[in-house]
């Protein structure tokens, strides 16, 4: 009996330990460290133990047996964070109806999406992968680390804020879906989008009250006879969580007017907007955005691809950052995700940001937007060992990412990857040859 107990305790301890030491050990030697929060360290070393940065400095003694990465002549930055993308998912939109707050991207993770590899090749270590913008109220998004090869559940960043996607403007009113295959759907106008969101929040308030009333009655000494809990409504529950402050809103919006309207909605109902997505006309209402402590997650350029983006400007990101808005540059795609550092660099030319300010747009700022700046976003002792190594300055037009590390583990090594690909190509050719041979 006693032995059994000891065994059980041992088991528990072991399980506990294995949970704590999730990462690996790694020493990065002699690189130019762009820490984002603590300036630039030439010839710097970073020691990562159990996935967490233990020490930053020069000439760090290598613990015995530790893997060492030589970064001589290279630039070491915190892993890039993409605040808005749609990779690593099986499906983007539940576009059949306008309100779909019941859906959760957590249910459709796809850890085998090669978009993860693409992201790694651009130094991206963390993403916020979202429901699309087809619906005024869409679904719950999720924050992932780009641990290619790991099981989907191991990608989830549990420390991140829970976020719910909203969308305004042309996409939710379906102005581009004129084909015969899609039936017309309410809402068809911007005023309709606003109205349907308000209506849903009213429902959520009602639902919340219903439950509060039930809980109160249930807690009474003599609960009334025939007390039955209300029907659970998965569509309204995330909105209630938003009203209770347990989730934050991420809202796809282009125009200044619709952003102002949404800010008013958030005040009317009392929920928190973490971020406007794209926010092409953010520069027009920078004061209002700052005053409400809202971030924006934007493209560097490529505006005017549709009517509502026609007043976008390349100075938007730089100008807004200058005005004190928490700005991040996002990819919104599985392709742009590999060159976010290029996009960040554009804000130096258009908007006049400094190197460090530009770098913040793809590291610390998105980390703050996702509520994970205490664990990632800069090179600091105690933060996760999520790191990208570039062969030239990451904001140079000629740079490329050489290595991407998450929690001390190397997930992308350009040299090794190219070798592997060469091997694979050889094998492919052989397979093709054999096929021909077999056919004769």
């Amino acid at each position, binding site marked *: 009996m006693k032995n059994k107990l000891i065994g059980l305790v041992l088991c528990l301890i072991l399980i506990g330990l294995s949970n704590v030491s999730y990462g690996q050990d790694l020493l990065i030697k002699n690189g130019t460290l762009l820490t984002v929060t603590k300036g630039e360290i030439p010839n710097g070393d970073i020691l990562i133990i159990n996935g967490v940065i233990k020490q930053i400095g020069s000439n760090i003694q290598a613990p015995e047996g530790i893997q060492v990465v030589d970064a001589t002549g290279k630039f070491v930055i915190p892993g890039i964070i993409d605040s808005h993308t749609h990779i690593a998912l099986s499906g983007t939109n539940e576009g059949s109806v306008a309100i779909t707050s019941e859906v959760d991207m957590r249910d459709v993770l796809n850890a085998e999406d090669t978009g993860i590899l693409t992201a790694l090749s651009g130094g991206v270590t963390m993403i916020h992968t979202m429901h699309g913008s087809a619906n005024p109220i869409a679904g719950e998004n999720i924050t992932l680390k780009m641990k290619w090869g790991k099981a989907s*559940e191991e990608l989830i960043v549990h420390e991140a804020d829970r976020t719910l996607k909203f969308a305004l403007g042309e996409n939710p009113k379906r102005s581009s879906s004129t084909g015969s295959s899609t039936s017309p759907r309410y809402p068809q106008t911007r005023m309709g989008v606003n109205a349907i969101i308000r209506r849903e929040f009213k429902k959520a308030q009602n639902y919340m009250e219903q439950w509060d009333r039930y809980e109160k009655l249930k807690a009474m000494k003599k609960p009334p006879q025939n007390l039955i809990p209300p029907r659970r409504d998965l569509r309204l529950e995330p909105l209630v969580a938003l009203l209770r402050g347990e989730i934050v809103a991420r809202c796809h919006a282009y125009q200044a007017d619709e952003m102002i309207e949404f800010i008013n909605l958030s005040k009317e109902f009392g929920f928190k907007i973490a971020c406007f997505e794209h926010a092409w006309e953010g520069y027009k209402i920078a004061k209002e955005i700052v005053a409400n402590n809202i971030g924006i997650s934007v493209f560097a350029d490529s505006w005017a691809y549709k009517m509502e983006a026609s007043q976008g400007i390349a100075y938007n990101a730089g100008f807004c950052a200058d005005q004190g808005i928490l700005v991040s540059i996002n990819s919104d795609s599985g392709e742009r995700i590999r060159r976010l550092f290029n996009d960040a660099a554009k804000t130096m030319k258009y908007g006049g940001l400094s190197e460090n300010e530009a770098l913040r747009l793809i590291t610390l700022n998105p980390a703050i937007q996702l509520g994970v700046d205490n664990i990632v976003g800069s090179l600091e002792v105690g933060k996760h060992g999520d790191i990208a190594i570039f062969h030239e300055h990451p904001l140079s037009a000629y740079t490329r990412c050489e290595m991407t590390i998450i929690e001390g583990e190397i997930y992308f090594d350009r040299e090794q990857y190219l070798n592997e690909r060469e091997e694979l190509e050889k094998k492919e050719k052989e397979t093709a040859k054999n096929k021909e041979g077999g056919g004769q």
Partner: protein
Amino acid sequence: MKKQKIILSLFLSASLMIATLAAFAEVGPTYAIIHCTVVPVNGPPVENGVIIIRDGLIESVGVFGDITIPDDAEVIEAGEMYAYPGLISAHTNLLLEPSSPPSQTQREASSSQLPDEEPGWQKSELMAFEKLLIKTTTIEDLYKAGITTVLVAPEQNIFAGQSVILNLRGENKEAMVLKQPFALHINFVTARGEYPSSLMGTMALLRQSFLDTEHYFLYKEQFAKSPSGLKRPEHNPFLESLLPYVIKKDPIIFNCANIEDIKRAIRLIQEFKLNGTISGANEAWRVVDWIKKANLPLLVSLDYRPPNMSKYVRQGDALKKEAEENIYPANAANLHKNGVKFALTSLGLSKSADVLKNLRTVIKSGFPEDEALKAMTIYPAEYLGIKNLVGSLEPGKIANVVLTTGKIFDEKTVVQKIFVDGLSFEVKQPPKKAESTSLDISGKWKAVVDSPMGAMDMTIEFIQDGSNITGSFTSEMGKWNITDGILNGKELTFSISANIMGESMSMEFSGTVDNESLEGNISVQGENAKLKATKIPNGGVEENLL
């Protein structure tokens, strides 16, 4: 006059009733299968064995000489043969009426979203039993694979419907039922053109449906106990149909095409404390930790083609080939190595003939033969709750016996004879060498196929070499090859290896032919279509000139 009619019909139905009762009470034949190697599965093989079958059940199993052969038994000399319990496929979509595609008006109606219209995903009330379409050819095909017992499940929609377990005797579906209904079947698919149109929507819908069922039950219970002050609950047929599965915990079978589906199913099963089974599961080895921890009944399909989203098929042809030939067929072996128990099923195999073929491949990849046999007999019997009826050769169990020409998993072995419910069925052997034929069918034929999708025009070109037929089959869907054709007198059979929207499929034709016309049936995945063709004179040369 009217009265007379009523009396007459009463009399008729009464006599009919007596006839049915008599049929029910009819005593089945007695057989003594002697001199065979008996592989009872629940114990070691018996050389020179005997199986006595009486009135549908196994009476005794033992060594020849130890067991008295009953005087009334028909003796079946089975020297050099092997006897196995009938194989069980614990998940198939065979033997069902083809579900006709919705007509244009129906489709239009569904897009207008009438509030009281039943959505397409909601088919939980559908009973496979009521949609059974027993085809002799399909059953003969299953016999060839040694299969005597199947679970038949509807295959489409999120809530697909409820399955039935059949013991495959004859054609009377009522007489074949072992369990009806058995399980609710759920697929991780989407609805077309309506909610839910995405997998995330499907997951939300599943959760909401389970929650609604729980609430519906709670409300009804409370109302039954003390209705005062409560609104009378509304009858909801959909939630009614879920009650046995969500509340009473009857089995729910989740069809899982990939690792994420398996995780989704396990999460739902745990969240709602369901009595869940994982089926399909040809990526199960990749989530073996989940499988072991969840410890659920597991039905692994013998259709081991890798799923489209697999990382093994998305990184070049070399890896894809490796995945198809070696990695995925080893699913069973890998699960077994990790100490996981499971049944094998024929789910997804369009030809039952592939069952034994694929079993052999699975064994070659390292899955032990004795486990393979259990995975097709006693394990599925256990999962289906029919272990006391079938799954092994034991006295008292249903006499489902398969006689084979050798060890069942050996390459050249064929099924010779099969007993279902103690009734003997001959298994049609593939014609080895056809008789010589006087017909010449080579050349081009103009054909029409009456499929459920409507009539389709095709051109067939036969190449004849004695009684062997090859050639091609051309339609608007492409040109397909004719293989394994045999012309036996006037009887013609051939296979068509088709490729429909990237999916390879095998169709079987059998019919009769003379010098000018051809008529018969094409079957594909258990569905049939009539084919009629006439020969184009001069091998189609004239037509080509025009």
